[in-house]
């Protein structure tokens, strides 16, 4: 077993920033990350791609990751790529698998910098090969220089589809059409938050510039799409969509990428019994944290988009704050010094957070995301449909965990990452209760299925605690 002062899970903007500041204050730091290289989601593969012509096509905010990765590499934190965390016991003892071997790490403090995932978007046919998320398409572009073979359909709402389409076009890919699912009237609702968002006028402009670029490139856009359906025998072959109350349109399609915003990764905090709160503004749970990112479990911090969606710049500054707090807790820096060093990070973070209400209102998910038609598979792993869940919801007002036991929804290997929020909403609306009254599934470790081979490795004296 190895022992460190601070274990950081995730080498994205938050994890890297936390590692740099913690090392600067002399902490012994280990960073584990399940990717082969540092950067997290925004800066995937940036170390190799930034220097190539592909880097420029991905844009400036992508290229900015190269200097962050370099600072992280030279900061002196031990870094283990390709290593997935699957359990943490109080105290702390963390279980990590790399290759097919598990081992334990003991740490005096832990920062979870595991980021966000895309919000599940269930609709009929979303399990067909050929339907992926926009984030998946973007990961394929960044890491493998890979684009859909034929012109691709994009459906969804939020900054990521706009960014991906501009990156795809710059790389030489083609867009068949963009089904913009942002409902009518969202801009009006968002404008209320405009004054607070003006501190980030650059980002407001970026959104406009992306939209204009897509228009110039002649990307066909259908606005206010409310419902989509994927169809095909064994793979996606066609796509149907319609506006609220409108007529269905059908078109052939081989690849459809969907996106309806991001939600924090909450499985690790939930498994550790950290307090979480329902964020109505972002339609998701987020851990309850103090001003440094410390959770309700002392010594356990959450930084980055895992703390609530706020973007990469906020992620970095949340990482800095958490790293400072651990340094202060372990006596490497006085509380007053930590406070002084934190001041600039807090200022930037405040500005970033002030921008969110505008984006959250503009891209609030359409109601259909939470109320798919009966035939839709909601739990992809156990193949439980919305109709089955609705039928169960009506009998005796069961809660989320009861319905999980009855139907097996949420019991598969993804542990509800693709169905939890949908199940909460379906039960809630059937029972006339707000989704948060039902709550998310109870999550127990391990955070991913663990094989006998991995467990056997723990028995080795070198690996076990």
């Amino acid at each position, binding site marked *: 077993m190895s022992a460190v002062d601070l274990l950081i899970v995730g080498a994205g903007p938050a994890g890297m920033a936390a590692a740099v500041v913690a090392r600067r204050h002399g902490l012994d730091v280990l960073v584990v990350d399940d990717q082969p290289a540092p950067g997290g989601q925004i800066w995937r593969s940036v170390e190799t791609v930034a220097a190539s012509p592909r880097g420029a096509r991905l844009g400036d905010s992508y290229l900015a990751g190269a200097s962050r990765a370099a600072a992280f590499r030279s900061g002196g934190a031990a870094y283990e790529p390709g290593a*997935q965390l699957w359990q943490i016991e109080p105290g702390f003892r963390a279980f990590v698998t790399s290759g097919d071997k598990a081992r334990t790490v003991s740490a005096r403090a832990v920062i979870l910098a595991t980021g966000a995932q895309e919000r599940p978007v269930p609709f009929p046919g979303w399990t067909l090969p050929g339907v992926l998320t926009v984030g*998946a398409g973007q990961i394929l572009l960044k*890491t*493998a220089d890979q684009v859909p073979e034929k012109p691709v359909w994009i459906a969804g709402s939020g900054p990521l589809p706009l960014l991906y389409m501009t990156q795809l076009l710059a790389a030489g890919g083609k867009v068949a059409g963009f089904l913009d699912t942002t409902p009518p009237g969202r801009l009006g609702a968002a404008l209320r938050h405009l004054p607070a968002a003006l501190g980030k006028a650059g980002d407001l402009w970026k959104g406009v510039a992306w939209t204009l670029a897509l228009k110039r490139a002649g990307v066909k856009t259908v606005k206010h799409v409310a419902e989509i359906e994927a169809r095909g025998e064994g793979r996606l072959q066609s796509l149907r969509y319609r506006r609220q109350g409108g007529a269905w349109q059908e078109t052939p399609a081989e690849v459809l990428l969907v996106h309806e915003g991001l939600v924090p*990764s909450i499985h690790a905090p939930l498994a550790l019994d950290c307090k979480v709160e329902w964020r109505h503004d972002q339609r998701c749970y987020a851990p309850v944290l103090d001003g440094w990112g410390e959770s309700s479990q002392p010594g356990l911090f959450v930084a980055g988009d895992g703390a609530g969606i706020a973007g990469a710049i906020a992620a970095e500054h949340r990482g800095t704050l958490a790293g400072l707090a651990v340094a202060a807790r372990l006596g490497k820096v006085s509380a007053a010094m930590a406070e002084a060093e934190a001041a600039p990070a807090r200022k930037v973070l405040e500005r970033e957070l002030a921008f969110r209400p505008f984006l959250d209102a503009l891209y609030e998910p359409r109601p259909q995301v939470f109320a798919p038609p009966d035939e839709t598979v909601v739990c992809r792993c156990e193949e439980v449909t919305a109709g089955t869940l609705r039928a169960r919801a009506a009998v005796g007002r069961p809660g989320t965990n009861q319905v999980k036991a009855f139907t097996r929804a949420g019991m598969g290997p993804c542990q509800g*990452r693709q169905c939890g929020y949908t199940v909460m909403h379906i039960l809630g609306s059937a029972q006339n209760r707000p989704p948060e009254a039902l709550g998310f599934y109870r999550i127990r470790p391990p955070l991913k299925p663990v*094989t006998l081979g991995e467990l056997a490795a723990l028995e080795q004296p070198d690996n076990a605690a």
Partner: protein
Amino acid sequence: MFRKLHDPGPSAVTVLIDGKAVSAEAGENLAALLLRQPEGWNRTSTVSQSPRAPYCMMGVCFECLAEVDGVGSVQTCLTTVRDGMRVSRQLGRRMLSA
């Protein structure tokens, strides 16, 4: 259903997919390679045996599972290709319980 924009050139390695030798770029992601195959799927689901393919590419959907070098239910989107790697598509249930 996907294509690579550049030719991996001399850095190419060979991966066996269901026994068939396929060329890949050294250091690239295994799920990305699977998505370039003519039949873009990699497994069938455990309940209805319907075909499934990588969906999230970031480890949160478990659709990309395959047998890799004899180990079942490996998340191929979190796996880097190696020369001589053996990948088999996974049909139905195989060590899938959480």
